């Protein structure tokens, strides 16, 4: 039954410890242990979320800041473990990560391509085969041996996008990354994402730009304070979301 879903999130709850002061040294830990104050001040970032995605679908995640969109993506990527419920995913996941998270600023673009590629789980050989393609897409031919710290944020974003989308993943996870970079490059990225969608990649897309969600996605899930408010076809969800937030 569940085999037909490429992402299957069932009754998932994610809990954080919001304890007013974070205990990260031993003295406090023992004091609180003795006073029985180590109690959790729990915060449920997601409550009983269900999301079933079939292969080839494009889902937009919408909602106001702090509604749990990124938390949901992190759980799907396997970074956060659910407190309750289950997550099943099938196939490879390529996350489009925030600027520079996978980069070492002291190293050159060339070295970072290999570092970041292997962080994503590719082999070195695979990266060698695709190296020219990545640099070509990122339009950084003249800056291959320049340390990344001298790059503009747009250049870094281009490189990151090029590395993450070079391989055709089964699931592409995009978290509001395209806001950087110039218009021309944004169009290029949308083009690439559309291309991948046509090729059967599943997309999970977070953006505050409701129009780009409507353009790219066929389904949407609307989160509000950790609860699914509505999920289904993108037009219906987006219309209702726009209505509410007018």
């Amino acid at each position, binding site marked *: 039954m569940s085999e037909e879903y490429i992402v299957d999130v069932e009754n998932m709850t994610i809990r954080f410890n919001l304890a007013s002061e974070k205990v990260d040294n*031993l003295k406090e830990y023992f004091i609180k242990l003795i006073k029985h104050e180590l109690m959790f001040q729990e915060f449920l970032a997601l409550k009983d979320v269900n999301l079933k995605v079939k292969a080839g679908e494009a889902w937009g995640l919408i909602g106001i800041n702090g509604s749990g969109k990124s938390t949901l993506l992190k759980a799907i990527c*396997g970074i956060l473990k659910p407190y309750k419920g289950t997550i099943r995913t099938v196939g490879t996941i390529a996350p489009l990560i925030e600027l520079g998270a996978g980069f070492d600023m002291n190293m050159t673009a060339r070295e970072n391509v290999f570092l970041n590629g292997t962080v994503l789980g590719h082999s070195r050989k695979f990266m060698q085969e695709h190296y020219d393609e990545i640099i070509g897409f990122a339009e950084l031919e003249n800056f291959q041996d320049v340390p990344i710290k001298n790059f503009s944020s747009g250049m870094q974003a281009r490189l990151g996008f090029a590395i993450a989308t070079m391989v055709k993943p089964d699931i592409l996870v995009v978290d509001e990354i395209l806001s950087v970079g110039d218009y021309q490059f944004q169009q290029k990225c949308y083009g690439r994402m559309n291309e991948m969608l046509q090729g059967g990649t599943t997309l999970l897309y977070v953006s505050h730009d409701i129009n780009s969600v409507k353009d790219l996605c066929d389904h949407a899930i609307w989160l509000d304070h950790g609860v699914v408010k509505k999920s289904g076809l993108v037009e219906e969800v987006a219309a209702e979301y726009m209505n509410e937030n007018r």
Partner: protein
Amino acid sequence: MAAMIERINVLIQYKDLLRELVVRDVKLKYRRSFLGYLWSILSPLLIMIVMTIVFSQMFDRGIDNFPVYLLTGSALFEFVNSSTHMAMYSVLDNSALLKKIYVPKYIFTLAKITSSVVDLVFSMGALFLVMLVTRAHFSLYMLLIPVVVIQIYLFACGLGFLLSAANVFFRDVQYIYNAFTTAWMYLTPIFYPIEMLDKMEWVRWIITHLNPMYYYIQHFRDLVLYGRFTDAAIFWGGWLFSFVVLFIGLFVFKKTQDKFILYV
């Protein structure tokens, strides 16, 4: 069993990442320095010269070829000291990445220890230079040096896993460990002979029973300096320390790693 195979597969999948991280550490260490990798040989040599001048006056009677005696001890101790110190920060330093992508977290710790092995190999180069200069005897037993290196590598990995996990939850570990390694250094016969402690029975007992570094260094010196097999007790004791510490480190790391993301 299936879980074990799964883990090995993941490690194989990420072996190139391990390689890239090690290469990065080695490359960045001496970037912008004039002498580059030569420092990995020069730096232990310079320290050895200073220490020899200072200490050979004090303990010269008991030790023949003091420079080699000192370098054999300090090379191994320096490896454990610097690799575990770097490993301690390995999870915290990569927190930005760990929050964004799923990567097996232990890769970063493993990479720090592994890149320190490169330094250890260089400092062995320094050791051989000194052996040449002091006309020390090169014996066939030196072919067994990799055994010691494997023992100490496993030990450092275990300690590194333990420290990197502990440091995520309690930043105090950094300061405690600094003091700890200082005490550890003085409680390891690096620049003094163990016989010097004959009058302090209990200190000697602690060192020869509870200090793993004593085992590795003694083993190493038997092979390099004295040209003989080490005692069975030193040999097996070394393996025992390696595997016990590795097991504890892996166990703690595995138990706590899912919570890292909430604390980094």
